[in-house]
């Protein structure tokens, strides 16, 4: 098996006429990394993948795989293998022929190809299915055939274009684990494209969050969730409550912000924006639903907000409480289910404590649209 090879995007711009699909992308993907590009549809993530696989050339900048500039090298000559969103299995070929297609291209004998295909089928737990046609397999099985077919080419880098989006929820969650396991077993670099932040967070070593052709943040799942760099990342990755306001004072890495409707709140400035904010600036404070807790006995311990309950939903492991918010959207609070029958009735005012450790302040900006 090949070992991980690094992929570097250096100042990559991709334009279609006047439309800029990717703007100044600089990404260094370590060899053997499970790296995800996460973003809403139309953000340019598939375009980046196509530039890495060689189906299109960047208008400017360089794509390097293992340090080698890929300019002018076609997709059939690159050490990458792509798994398509719709898998693109060859419907008229048997499973084993599908898997060993890359060997057929290199002129391997039928016996060699069959042997290798059977090995890969065993690896993806589909032993003995080699003589079937793709149409005879289920969605999850086809998925695994597509992975086996891509791995058969012994790529240095495996590119995956939202391959789980067609599967149902249960299977999708199962395949996440399986993909991660396969990646660790073969040890090659995986580059994964998705709009599903759950997939990106659970599987990846590192994630790049994209918005409208721009990479907003690159980091581990934990960094991106706990310390989002921009309002877009904060609102796109996971759920977040936003409070708008103006900076009142800055004390080292902490800032105090005068919110429009929820009083004065203090929290950490998100690491990426430290030193870039000044008193009086328009700012946003992001609080995760799970960072909100009920203030004991309704006492005001400083960093609290008061709001009326709008609605309450029971979700099994948690209660979601929605309160009258700052803007159009209600404030959401998640409380673990510890046996309470309910949290509060509609219309009841609650005092909520904000955990400043997991709450961030940053300059105001564009949020992800729902």
């Amino acid at each position, binding site marked *: 098996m090949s070992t991980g090879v690094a992929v570097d995007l250096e100042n990559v711009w991709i334009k279609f006429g006047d439309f800029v699909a990717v703007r100044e992308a600089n990404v260094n993907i370590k060899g053997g990394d499970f790296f995800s590009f996460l973003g809403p549809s139309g953000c340019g993530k598939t375009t980046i993948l196509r530039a890495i696989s060689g189906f299109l050339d960047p208008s400017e900048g360089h794509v390097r795989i293992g340090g080698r500039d890929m300019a002018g090298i076609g997709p*059939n000559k690159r050490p990458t293998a792509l798994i398509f969103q*719709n898998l693109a299995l*060859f419907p008229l070929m048997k499973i084993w022929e599908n898997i060993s*297609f890359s060997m057929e291209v290199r002129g391997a004998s039928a016996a060699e190809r069959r042997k290798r295909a059977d090995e890969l089928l065993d690896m993806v737990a589909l032993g003995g299915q080699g003589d079937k046609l793709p149409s005879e397999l289920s969605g999850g099985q086809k998925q695994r055939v597509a992975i086996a077919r891509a791995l058969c*080419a012994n790529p240095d880098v495996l590119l995956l274009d939202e391959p789980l989006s067609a599967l149902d929820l249960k299977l999708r969650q199962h395949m996440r684990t399986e993909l991660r396991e396969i990646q660790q077993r073969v040890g090659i670099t995986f580059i994964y494209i998705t709009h599903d932040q759950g997939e990106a967070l659970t599987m990846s070593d590192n994630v790049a969050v994209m918005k409208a052709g721009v990479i907003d943040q690159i980091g581990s799942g934990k960094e991106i969730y706990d310390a989002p760099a921009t309002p877009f990342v904060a609102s796109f990755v996971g759920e977040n409550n936003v409070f708008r306001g103006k900076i009142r004072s800055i004390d080292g890495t902490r800032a105090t912000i005068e919110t429009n409707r929820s009083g004065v709140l203090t929290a950490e400035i998100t690491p990426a924006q430290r030193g870039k904010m000044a008193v009086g600036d328009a700012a946003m404070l992001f609080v995760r639903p799970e960072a909100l807790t009920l203030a004991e006995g309704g006492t005001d311990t400083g960093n609290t907000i008061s709001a009326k309950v709008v609605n309450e939903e029971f979700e099994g492991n948690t209660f979601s409480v929605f309160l009258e918010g700052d803007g159009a959207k209600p404030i959401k609070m998640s409380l673990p289910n510890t046996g309470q029958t309910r949290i509060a009735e509609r219309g009841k005012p609650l005092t909520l404590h904000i955990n400043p450790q997991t709450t961030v302040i940053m300059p105001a900006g564009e949020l992800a649209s729902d």
Partner: protein
Amino acid sequence: MKRKLIFADFFRNNGALMGSILIGLVAFWLIVLVILPQISMLDYSFRFNLPPAEQGGPKDVYTLSNYQHLIYGSDETHQSFNTIDLMVFLRTIVAAIMVTIFDIILCYPLAYFLGQARGMGMARLLVVLLIIPYWVNEILRAFALRIIFGDGGLINEALMLLHLTSEPIDFIRHDIALYAGLGYAYILLMLFPMYNVIESLDRNQIEAARDLGASWTRIHRRIVIPHAKPGIASGSTMVFMLSAGALATPQILGGPSSLWFTQLVYQWFNNSLNWQQGAAYAIVLLVATITIVMTIMKIFRVNMGDIGK
């Protein structure tokens, strides 16, 4: 049992009246327009060409003489073969096969371009431009080709202007005009079935093959052509059948020494007024072309059902 259910569904979906009308029309088409004329031709081909007075009389019995005439000619002893008619028959079949192959080669790149050039307004325009010439009558088109291929025609003029030939090439005598005319006459029947199947090919299939290292020739051989096979088969069947059965084009563009088998059939019907003999020749042509189509489909493993796709 299953067939019954299909009809039951059909009536439920369309209502008793509409269902009966639709099925009645299909039955009419099949029986009156297809089966009965063929049966009457088949019947004719096994009878003697008798004057009207003797028809239905004691001399009106079934015979193989019309078929024997194709093989042995007027030689009652069956010592020598009817080489002239047999050669015409063979030449017609071989030429029709060549015309079909020529159309496949010509249409495949065009169909691939049209089918895969998605989102390009040009492809649609090209299809329209291909159809428009077919508004012109077939005979008129054949005469136009005759002019183009003539001694003072566009092609000869151009060749001489470029000094590629010193004197005009006789395209008509060499049957080049005939093959070009036949190839052109039915080319759309090849193009459209091919275009339809190639258009339905998922682009990702091509990209996946490319990504796995395949060259363009391999992509066509392993992905595009297998996918397009039903379309190619359907187009080939139509072009072959119609070329072998063409009459007007060979009449106009055929060289002075070359007859098309359909012209023989026409002569029996029209000039010799021997319908029985003509029917036998026509039946031989029909059976031969069907046999060839079935054999080739068997060789290339195409199912009859695929052709209708």
